[in-house]
């Protein structure tokens, strides 16, 4: 079981992620924006972080950059949610320190596939 932080301002997306990951035996912590996500990354160690990019208060890119400065999250896989048309955003997120991406819309199977890929489980 892994401890996974999911950061998205959409409650429905957070719920969909939580249901899928919980069903696979993972523990899921939720945050509703980049600021809350960063606060949780400061206070807890996660095995993986899944984040949207377009969020209020602090966007996903800024949050990823800040998380990469945290020693306790060194090497933590960060997956961002994107769309196939967001090629430029994908490059920005990778430059910010993201590990990989998941294309929206996604189904639970794709989410779990990416999770297994970065966690090796």
């Amino acid at each position, binding site marked *: 079981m892994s401890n996974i932080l999911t950061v998205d301002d*959409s*409650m*429905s*997306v957070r*719920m*969909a992620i939580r*249901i899928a990951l919980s069903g696979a035996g993972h523990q899921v912590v939720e945050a509703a924006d980049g600021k809350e996500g960063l606060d949780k990354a400061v206070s807890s160690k996660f095995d993986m972080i899944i984040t949207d990019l*377009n969020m209020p208060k602090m966007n996903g890119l800024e949050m990823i950059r800040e998380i*990469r400065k945290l*020693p306790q999250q*060194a*090497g*933590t*896989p*960060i997956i961002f949610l*994107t*769309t*196939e*048309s967001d*090629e430029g955003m*994908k490059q920005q997120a*990778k430059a910010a*320190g*993201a*590990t*990989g*991406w998941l*294309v*929206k*819309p*996604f*189904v639970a199977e794709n989410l779990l596939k990416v999770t297994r*890929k*970065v*966690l*090796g489980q």
Partner: protein
Amino acid sequence: MSGPDPVEAFRLEAGELLDATEQALLDLSQDLASRDLIDTVFRGLHTLKGSGAMFGFDALAAFTHHCETIFDSVRKGNVPASAELVAVTLSAMDHIRTLIDDPDGEDVDTASAALLARIQALSGGDSGTAAAPAPGAPAPHTDDSAHQHGWHVQFRLPPDALMNGTNPLILLDELRDMGATNLVVDFSHVPPLDALDPTQCHLGWTMDIPSTATREEIEDVFIFVIDDMELSIRATDATTDSPVQAQTPDTMEGQVPNAVQTATATQAEHLAEHPGAKATRPPQ
């Protein structure tokens, strides 16, 4: 916290998003040059499309895709923002509400088609229907052979791969599951200990993979780093067996003593799990 089901949460969020997008459209009608408002409308449509598709509102996603596409063209300056476009998009907002509340209702398809015809008439031929390539789409192939019976793979990850969350051991496991053999570690880029940055990935790998794996499957292992790494996948054929030359003087080929492989795996694991730790050169 169990909460409501995600579909109901989506309906609630979609309603709020429609309200905000409609307001942006109304504001845009008073200021057609506003980049912020155009972006707001685009993002609203974009989110409605993506979330709708996630929660099974396929008709909503398909219809909204066209609305999003024309606003993407507006953002790029290919289609002008006009009062007519704002008006038809406001009508589309009403229709999207119907697609959320009663997606299987009578005349829904007819209404979608009529609105899409109006939207496409405004696109001026810049419908933007060409989709971007899928993330990680494989590069064109140039050296595949009908006679190949396997692959010789060489790769070196980006230096910051470990810090950015890529664990090489997991990639190696994936390759091993494809039947990788003759795994060789290339130490040639490992600097002297006093100059070594243990957070960087200094190792490279070579291996042979049987033809039961396709090139696409091998590339897919590296999907998140393939644009930033060194990767060579060469077909081996029956006549030459292995055409690959050593990439560097320190690259070892053929069978590797178990002690070296074990030590290398231990070092890689140590680096992957403790990127802040000091690494040592394994015995050779």
